[in-house]
């Protein structure tokens, strides 16, 4: 059967969360995505949040009843892509000890999935896809403190949990002490780590999807 059924391309949905195009966090993302492309049949879509028209959550809680958001904006086209992705990658810089506000707006708009899952008790993804989705969080920070990412990680976990990507299935690569645009190019290990991560995530997905 396995030989007859055509294997679908692995779908990767990547968010470049930084307002600065081509900066450190997006460079890290591009390294990961380039490595993923080399792993065979991988369909990658990269969304730059600064151009994606995703507004903050209004906190109206209407999604707890309607099972959809009342706002009509860039999330309308992202919604189905988020559900269909086998791997969702979020790249965002740390500003003022937290994830940049553009990425936080996207995370908060996942409230519609949270309502679907926990309030309406409806499936966010078909049951057979649970455990077959992976998340990647990439981040960069100008500060050299080790704890500079601590404020961002809990929100990132929420982001993935509500779309059925478990804690154990989130991969992290967070690089501190890179501030000015391009600083990451001089980092001793970031590029190699990013490439290894891209490779490992696709191999892991290939394994899980063929189970």
């Amino acid at each position, binding site marked *: 059967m396995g030989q007859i059924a055509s294997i679908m391309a692995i779908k990767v949905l990547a968010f470049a969360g930084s307002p600065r195009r081509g900066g450190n966090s997006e460079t890290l993302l591009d390294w990961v995505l380039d490595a993923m492309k080399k792993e065979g049949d991988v369909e990658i879509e990269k969304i730059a949040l600064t151009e994606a028209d995703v507004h903050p959550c209004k906190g109206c809680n209407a999604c707890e009843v309607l099972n959809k958001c009342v706002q009509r904006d860039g999330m309308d086209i992202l919604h189905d892509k988020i559900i269909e992705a086998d791997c969702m990658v979020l790249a965002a810089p740390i500003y*003022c000890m937290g994830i940049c506000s553009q990425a936080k707006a996207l995370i908060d708009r996942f409230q519609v999935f949270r309502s679907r899952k926990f309030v309406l008790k409806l499936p966010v993804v078909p049951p057979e896809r649970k455990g077959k989705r992976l998340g990647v969080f990439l981040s960069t920070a100008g500060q050299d403190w080790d704890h500079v990412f601590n*404020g961002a990680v809990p929100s990132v976990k929420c982001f993935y949990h509500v779309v059925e990507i478990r804690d154990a299935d989130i991969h992290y690569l967070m690089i501190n002490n890179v501030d000015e645009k391009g600083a990451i190019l001089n980092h001793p290990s970031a590029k190699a780590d990013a490439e290894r991560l891209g490779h490992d995530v696709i191999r892991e997905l290939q394994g899980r999807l063929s189970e």
Partner: protein
Amino acid sequence: MDVNVMGISGSPHRHGNTETLLDAFLDGAAEEGAGIEKVILKKLDYSPCRGCNTCHKTGVCIMEDDAPPLFDRILSMDCIAVASPIYSMGITAELKGLIDRAQYLWAKKFVLKTLYFPNEHIQRHKGVFISTAGLSWDNVFDAAFPAITAFFNTIGFEYYDNIIANDMDKYNGIKGHPTALDEARDKGRRVVKEIRSL
């Protein structure tokens, strides 16, 4: 001396749990004779920080919107209460958007070194964080603190206190919470007294 207190509501939801808790704090401050004002971020027009780092050279933000005048006003206050509900384990995008825009003040302090707050200034300027969360977890506010700490540090305010209440879903809102509103009112009174005593 006159004490001026500003409350900044970062909730997109008007008169919800967080803003009600902020109101109690401001009422307490007013009872103690402080001048109070409240800013509702969702009514203002400001964009998120673009990360262009121009301010690292000029000390001025290139965006001409409501954020720089608000920071001028914030810097003239004696006490700032920053309020946000917890969404997805963090502060709202509205409040984070404002905090990120303080980058030009950070640049003036740490890059250009044209802005400096002596310790006596910091001690006389008090920052309070006000928050509510639906979840019952004790750690639900933890990821918000670093950004609030960084913000107060940037604007030269001492991080004086938190007024936080979790488990809103259980209490059916802040008005059902046994102690939070009284605590907020007390802390509003106390911070004004303390600033006056300095």
